[in-house]
């Protein structure tokens, strides 16, 4: 048994909330530079340059990249040989989010869904805990804005829909989302499972670095096919017309039921903010 204090977890979460909102990942920056080379629209190119300028400014002055600093989505992979001491895990996570959003001057967006009254500290986080072998604790924080989240969708298709039907559904979703999802987007697809599993693996797929293909060559090919189709839509950077509508497509799969073909599409804006730490 390895002991990890919940205070440590709180401190890590606080830092990850602030870092993810102010420092864009290298994979995202590389993808934007690559998109700039491919983009045919002059306005589109200018917008991609603005993304890079904004990222440099936000990093240098520790400013939020986007005013929508999201709900904090926290993925925890907890080793089964870890013994947590000092308090309970959920409280420690939410205390970290509370401190991160207050001390980092981040926007507080969480509120009561009926009364619409803001809680004032962006808690509670959306927490996903997985027990895994080992004595480590991995924390991933995705601070996801809702422009793109609002454009996401889960459908439980009949099996006859097939791979072609799935491709059409995903491309149509990106088309309907248009400028609202802040393109160029990263498209997270959850294929299989059930209602909630499809949505969860779609979100998790977004944590994979941009440009990294699925290890299964058949799934990797579907990712590439969908990316090609999306970039024929003409939506372009910020929806003003152009040749780069998506930076990447990530698929995660899970076994499903004989009577269903669940598909979740979780759209991610170009300002793709997530940070990880292993304890």
């Amino acid at each position, binding site marked *: 048994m390895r002991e990890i204090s919940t205070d440590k977890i709180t401190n890590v979460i606080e830092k990850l909330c602030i870092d993810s909102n102010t420092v864009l990942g290298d994979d995202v920056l590389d993808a934007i530079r690559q998109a700039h080379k491919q983009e*045919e*629209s002059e*306005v589109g190119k200018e*917008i991609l340059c*603005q*993304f890079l*300028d*904004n990222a440099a*400014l*936000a990093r240098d*002055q*520790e*400013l*939020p*990249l*986007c*005013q*929508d*600093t999201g709900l904090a989505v926290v993925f925890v992979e907890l080793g089964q040989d870890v013994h947590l001491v000092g308090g309970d895990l959920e409280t420690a996570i939410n205390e970290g989010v509370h401190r991160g959003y207050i001390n980092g*001057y*981040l*926007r*507080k*967006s969480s509120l009561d869904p009926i009364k*619409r009254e*803001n809680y*004032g500290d962006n808690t509670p986080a959306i927490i996903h805990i997985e027990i895994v072998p080992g004595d480590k604790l991995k924390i991933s924080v995705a601070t996801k*804005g809702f*422009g793109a989240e*609002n454009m996401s969708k889960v459908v439980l298709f009949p099996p006859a829909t097939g791979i072609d039907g799935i491709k059409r559904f995903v491309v149509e979703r990106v088309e309907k989302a*248009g*400028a*609202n999802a*802040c393109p160029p987007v990263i498209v997270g697809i959850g294929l299989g499972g059930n209602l909630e599993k499809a949505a969860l693996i779609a979100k998790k797929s977004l944590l994979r670095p941009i440009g990294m293909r699925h290890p299964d060559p058949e799934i990797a090919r579907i990712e590439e096919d969908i990316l090609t189709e999306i970039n*024929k*839509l*003409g*939506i*372009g950077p*910020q*929806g*003003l*017309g*152009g*040749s780069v509508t998506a930076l990447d497509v990530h698929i995660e799969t899970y076994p499903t039921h004989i009577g269903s073909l669940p598909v979740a599409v979780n759209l991610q*804006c*170009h*300002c793709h903010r997530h940070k990880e730490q292993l304890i």
Partner: protein
Amino acid sequence: MQTICLSTPLSDEALRTLKAGDKVLISGTIYTARDAAHKRLVDLLERGDQLPVELQGQIIYYSGPTPPKPGMVIGSAGPTSSYRMDPYTPKLIENGLKGMIGKGPRGNEVISAIKKHKAAYFAATGGVAALLSRTVKACQVVAYEDLGTEAIHKLEVEGFPAIVINDIEGNDLYRDGKEKYQDR
């Protein structure tokens, strides 16, 4: 494509010259308002009451800024998706609002109101809020302070960059831009 310097309040003459696709740099006073503030404004208009801010000729910016760090005028303040304000916007345009800044397409009723009452809808780049905030020189909450980030903030901006999406002739840059690059 041209870059046009605009100042608020927007004149009818300026609005007549704007075309979808024009780049603009906006200077002067603009007001932030999102979903919750829009609901309150339209409730007031429907009751025949006076608005807490004078909207004649003015621009509403769909933005909920982050809190300012010490010594700063404002935090990061970029545009949010505009479609959520569609149920309220025609009523505000009928009552003198002349411009909206946000991101994403508008519904037909908003586009018709823009055409009928001679207004304009502008898009600012989403996800570059730190950059856009540099054009904000002053910021003051002028109504609905209880709404926090969703309160109405009066901003003084200098050279705020945006692009015309919907003009008085009913053009739509989102539609035209996409058609130009489709299936290439």
